């Protein structure tokens, strides 16, 4: 998927999906053809909510992608609290997590500085994209750990924090890259979802990710634009993004904010 035409074509298709769902759901409800009871009614309202949330997410990501690609992403950096952003985001998605029957825990190391210099609105969006991704791809009964720690140049990944309740993901190669990073705060999300195929790992964080498998639940197929936006935001801040995964065992997605 390289050409602008292909991109536009697929985006139109993606946007049509959730908006068409809202139209069709509201038609059947309006005509009284379904929703005979309270439970069905609640299901239909939830589908409208999911579809409209997804449409909005697509539109927001499209706008940001356009800004990133034309170097028009204007950061408004100021001393900001990453812990507050993480807590607020988890709180914001609390209902979605409950509906998905996925538990979310926060693990922020005490060494994370109170204030860092970054654009809080964009960093929140970058983080939300990771969390949303994890929620989409973690099945009911699964677990997500949201974490953060201060990395010092020369140190390997803090595996205990990164892996939380999940299995080990970070391999030796990844750790070698990590050791070379300058002092930074690492923020990440570890999930117990379906994991990512080895063949798909290179496609992550690119503008167009049609993964070989699609184990997302609900209507949210996900086309990877959120991760590409996260990468754009973080790189504009001078940080890096990364991911590790084991098929069938879950994934880790993270980014860094320089100290």
């Amino acid at each position, binding site marked *: 998927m390289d050409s602008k035409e292909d991109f536009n074509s*697929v985006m139109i*298709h993606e946007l*049509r999906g959730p*908006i068409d769902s809202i*139209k069709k759901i509201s038609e059947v409800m309006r005509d009284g053809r379904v929703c005979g009871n309270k439970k069905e009614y609640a299901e239909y309202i939830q589908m409208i909510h999911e579809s409209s949330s997804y449409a909005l997410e697509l539109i927001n990501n499209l706008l940001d992608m356009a800004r990133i690609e034309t170097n028009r992403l204007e950061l408004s950096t100021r001393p900001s609290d990453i812990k507050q952003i993480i807590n607020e985001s988890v709180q914001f998605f609390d209902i979605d997590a409950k509906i998905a029957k996925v538990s979310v825990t926060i693990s922020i190391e005490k060494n994370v500085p109170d204030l860092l210099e970054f654009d809080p609105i964009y960093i929140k969006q970058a983080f939300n994209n990771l969390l949303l991704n994890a929620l989409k791809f973690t099945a009911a009964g699964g677990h997500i750990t949201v974490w953060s720690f201060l990395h010092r140049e020369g140190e390997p990944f803090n595996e205990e924090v990164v892996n939380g309740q999940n299995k080990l993901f970070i391999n030796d190669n990844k750790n070698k890259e990590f050791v070379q990073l300058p002092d930074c705060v690492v923020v990440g999300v570890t999930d117990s979802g379906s994991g990512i195929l080895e063949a798909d790992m290179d496609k992550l964080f690119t503008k167009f990710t049609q*993964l070989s498998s699609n184990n997302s639940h609900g*209507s949210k*197929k996900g086309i990877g634009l959120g991760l590409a936006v996260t990468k754009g935001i973080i790189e504009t801040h001078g940080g890096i993004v990364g991911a590790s995964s084991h098929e069938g065992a879950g994934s880790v997605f993270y980014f860094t904010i320089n100290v």
Partner: protein
Amino acid sequence: MKKILLIDDDKIFLKIFRDTIRQERNEVYEVTTVTGGKEGLIKIRESRPDLIVLDLKMPGMEGIDFLRELKKENFNPQIPILISSNFSDMEKIGEGIELGVKGYVVKSDYSLEGIIKYIDDLLKN
């Protein structure tokens, strides 16, 4: 009762389609839904449907790839297929028609009732 196989990765569309058929065409159609082309091929081999409603853009096996695989199975008579997709690439639709598709709807251009009436017409003929 006629059997319809709906192959679409949009789980919301699958649900509202199933619910509406249950409400509007209860003793007329039996609907089976799957979310991908590979599952669709398995279902067809288990129990041959009277009509397939097929999405084009799906992860794994796309609609056109499914049609190519189905052609290899060489069913006689052929199973009528309706493309139902929000992907309106005319080239893909043209290829679908060459592979034996009987009709196509761009989902967002039709109400659910409209799609079901299209299905009624296809199965009547």
